[in-house]
């Protein structure tokens, strides 16, 4: 044993040295999401997308070999609906989350680095925005747009999702701004844009990634909320729409478990998966959280 003199008030913890085990939540999360995608991957051996159309077959059939998840009251085959719906929901999440992170990240970067009036304006908007329940605003917007498609849905959600991203990015930029490498870059004559794009942005990558996963989660959450209320993209199949229709046609009362249970199950898999992934990414982006466990 080497003798090392250590300031005894350092409280250290024993960590598992294996990287695999430390990132188990991340892997488990990704695994869950892959499981959620199983209907999409395996469904093609049982059904075709056309069967998801209205009156693709006899309505209200329980599961059978021909319709592994049965049909619902409009005659749609449910497995086909899920095959189309899961990617649609994920797409809304990615579009909404992606746009939110891009807009929010840029605004946070600019606001944190530039300071002054830009910062004050953006900060006030963010502070006000954080007190507003996002669903309220989303409902208002969604109700006012007559025809909502999947990409439009994503954009609608992004209008409220960017706010928390801005706040997180901004505070991180404020910390980084005072570091030596930024000051050195400034002294070397690198312009504001250069510093933001080439010095700050690369260092913000871990936070970016964590924010992205969080935003996608928020986006999917918001989209399901809107869809269950009936405000989703009615023309497309999404998981939320399936649930809405199940409630509309009182599927639970009619004992049609194959209608309302599978979409909920898939959603739970997606949410738990995203939760585990974002937990781990948060820890990587902010190592101080490590002390928690």
């Amino acid at each position, binding site marked *: 044993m080497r003798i*090392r003199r250590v300031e005894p008030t*350092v409280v250290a*913890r024993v960590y598992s040295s294996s990287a695999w085990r430390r990132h188990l939540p991340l892997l488990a999360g990704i695994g869950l999401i892959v499981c959620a995608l199983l209907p999409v991957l395996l469904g093609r051996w049982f059904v075709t997308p056309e069967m998801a159309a209205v009156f693709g077959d006899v309505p209200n059939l329980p599961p059978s070999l021909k319709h592994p998840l049965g049909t619902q009251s409009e005659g749609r085959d449910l497995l086909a609906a899920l095959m189309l719906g899961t990617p649609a929901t994920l797409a809304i999440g990615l579009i909404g989350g992606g746009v939110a992170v891009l807009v929010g990240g840029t605004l946070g970067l600019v606001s944190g680095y530039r300071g002054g009036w830009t910062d004050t304006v953006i900060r006030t908007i963010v502070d006000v925005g954080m007190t507003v329940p996002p669903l309220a605003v989303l409902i208002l917007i969604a109700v006012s747009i007559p025809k909502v498609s999947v990409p439009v849905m994503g954009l609608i959600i992004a209008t409220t999702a960017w706010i928390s991203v801005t706040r997180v990015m901004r505070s991180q930029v404020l910390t980084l701004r005072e570091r030596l490498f930024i000051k050195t870059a400034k002294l070397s004559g690198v312009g504001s844009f250069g510093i933001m794009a080439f010095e700050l942005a690369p260092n913000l990558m871990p936070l970016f990634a964590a924010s992205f996963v969080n935003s996608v989660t928020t986006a999917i959450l918001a989209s399901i909320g809107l869809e269950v209320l009936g405000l989703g993209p009615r023309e497309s199949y999404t998981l939320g729409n399936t649930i809405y229709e199940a409630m509309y046609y009182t599927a639970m009362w009619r004992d049609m478990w194959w209608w309302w249970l599978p979409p909920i199950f898939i959603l739970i898999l997606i949410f738990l998966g995203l939760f585990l992934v974002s937990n781990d990414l948060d820890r990587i982006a902010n190592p101080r959280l490590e002390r928690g466990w």
Partner: protein
Amino acid sequence: MRRQVLDVQDIEIVYRTRGGPVRAVSSLSFSVFDNEVFGLVGESGSGKSTLAMAILGNLPDTGVLTRGRILFDGRELGAASPATWRAVRWKHLAYVPQGAMNVLNPLRRIRDQFDDIISDHGVRSNQPDWKATILALLKAVHLAESVLACFPHELSGGMKQRVCIAMAMLLGPKLIIADESTSALDVISQRVVLQTLLEVRARLNAAIVLIGHDLALQAQVADRVGIMLAGRFVEIGPVTRIFDRPLHPYTQRLIASVPSIRHQHGLPDVVAADEAERKAWLSEDARLLEVEPGHFVASPSVPRQ
């Protein structure tokens, strides 16, 4: 034969860290006798606070007493159960931390914090009696009664320190460990605190372990002094002997660094040790040899086993 209130026998304390085990204290032995002031001197990182926490039974979860025994008043405490500790703590063994630290609960008034100690130690909180005791204690540490109604942030560093001293005295312990009690204070407050500690000793007939890094300060109040380096003692002895005849080279350096009014012409030459010397000291055998009655030194000539 004087009574030993604290007897530490050959202990070793190890911290488990991510980088492997770290030995903070090794092969350390010393005793504290009744009613004496034992000064524990060492630089930062020498293991003083670890030793104090071990004696108090409050090592963090990562710290382990891997060898040796700690006997308080004849009773073995090292790895005792929480119940045993609760019986001993504060009633017999008290602690005065660095008051400038955040040791007083910021959300509770001072009088409530006194009450917590009283009620949790099973002594019937016969209100009038205890109120009088507390007031007397405050007076002893030169604090006004108004302090009781305050929150900690409303008091100065020196006042908080003295509140801590008063708290330590509350149940009349036999041993008080004072950890860097004067380190963050100005000179006058330091004086007041030291004086208060001596008065405490006289009042309670208690022993005090005074931990610090200021040898000059220790010289004024301690009866015996122990010099700690890298987790063990290099020299222990009566304070006068240590100053008159320091035997270990490290001790000699420490004493030479103490500013003295005798050095009329500029500062003494820097007396820091060089790498080789430090290495030599670190590889010494920790066993202390009694060179004169009561004066122990770590021997540089005996190689480490």
